């Protein structure tokens, strides 16, 4: 149970539901611990860099304005 101070805010039924959810997730999260030799942060940085490289291949002129708040057409 993550935060005992909040117990009074929910019914027993709701807390039971949350507690069983934590119990279900904990072993799964543990199983997904980063495998040895795998640097996930570096993997994600590299993925972002690949995406940005793909963006840089699109020719843009100064007249190509960005979307600020999508206005659908």
């Amino acid at each position, binding site marked *: 149970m993550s935060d005992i101070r909040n117990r009074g805010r929910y019914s027993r039924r709701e807390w039971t539901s949350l507690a069983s*959810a*934590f119990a*279900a997730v904990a072993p*799964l999260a543990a199983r997904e611990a980063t495998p040895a030799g795998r640097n996930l942060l570096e993997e994600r940085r590299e993925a*972002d860099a690949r*995406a940005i490289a793909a*963006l840089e291949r699109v020719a843009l002129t100064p007249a190509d304005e960005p979307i600020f708040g999508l206005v659908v057409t």
Partner: protein
Amino acid sequence: MPASDVFFKSVSELNRMLVNREVSSRELTEACLHRLETLGPKYNAIAALTRKSAMQQAEKVDGDLKRKRFRGPLQGIPFGAMDSLAYPGYPTAWGAKPFASQSFETKAAAIENLEGTGAVLAAKLAMVELAGAGGYEYASASISGPGRNPWNPDYWSGGSSSGSAIAVAAGLLPYALASETRDSIITPSAYCGVTGLSPTYGYVSRFGAMPVSWTMDKIGVMCRSAEDCGHILQAISGGDNRDRGSAGKSFYYGPEYVGELSRLTLGYNPADFEQWPELATRAAFVTALEELNILRLRLEVTELPDLPYDSVASTVIHAEAASAFEPFIRDGRVDELADRYQIAGLRAALELKSTDYLRAQRIRAKMQNELTPLFRKLDILITPSRLRTASPLDDPLQPAPSPRASAKTRGLTDLGTAANLLGWPSLSIPCGFVHGLPIGLQLVTRPFNENRLLAVGAAIQRRTDWHLQRPPVA
């Protein structure tokens, strides 16, 4: 107690039963709550039951029905809402352990609108943590555990609106609200065999909804049929000055105004059905395509311009999500998430440069200019919703669940991503089964033309029974 058939009835059928006093809203709500309680945990579908407020609303509606105060097709019918939507008095955990004790005093506008028509919120439904804002590698990326597919609980439900799709597919609820930033409605709809509508950006207020990407987030719905989607979109759409993205428009469900379907032209690409999908699914997709010929819809081959759809979408979503969740990432609470791939993704996203984000948004504008003309000669674009069936529960979802097929043309394989980037509406309808798991077709059209999508979807569903199939739920 209503017969078991009642759990798979459409909104229109349930409304008829309520108006004719064959069943009361209280009975219907109690029956759904019982089913949610007993079957929901089996599929990890539930975030929280809203029993107390649901029974109060049901009793109020029964009073109205008794006095013949009819308020439309959703009156007295229970529904569910993805746990990204706030509802006072109950937790809104956004599917994530670090937010397990979070609650809001405000009510999400979409829920508020439904309750205004007499609909009854019965449950908050499970979702992928933070709607997968930073990307995720495993189906178990949720405080509720992995979404289990009602057609085979050893397979994933799809995400991020996992609980919404499960609840509708398993007959726990007639319909459920969900959210889509990128495929979060379309994917679970296809994998669970339900009809999912992601409306035009701005049609439905996002007030009270968890933000992932302010320029891409949409609230939509999952139902048993295209017709049901129309009734619900009519109820939840409308301008809202509490949402900066609101288009200020309301949707009126009127498929009859679309006219003769034989006058519509559908853009498709044979490669999307014959080459891109996973081998086992190709025959089923081709069969589904043949149904369109029987409906005498005109088909024309087309393809999307060569643009980096995936890169633009990932850059926009990651940059906006990193901004929305910046304090949470910086103070280390992000490490309490279940999925390590998402933790790393959110941390890396904080390092994106403003010029990269702006470049993505500039290409997005260019994309809008280049893709919008497609609708000068085409009315709807159509492609498989996903190129495969749901994956086994323990399979990694990233970077690719299986070796990707290839084809000589890109066809419309990026249609879903393009639609999300441009705010176009999208409908996923069931179109067959492969090894006992559903597959779906995705239909996309120009903004604010949902009636066109729903009319074609309903016509297909009048001819076929894929959407009427029921999973082997106890």
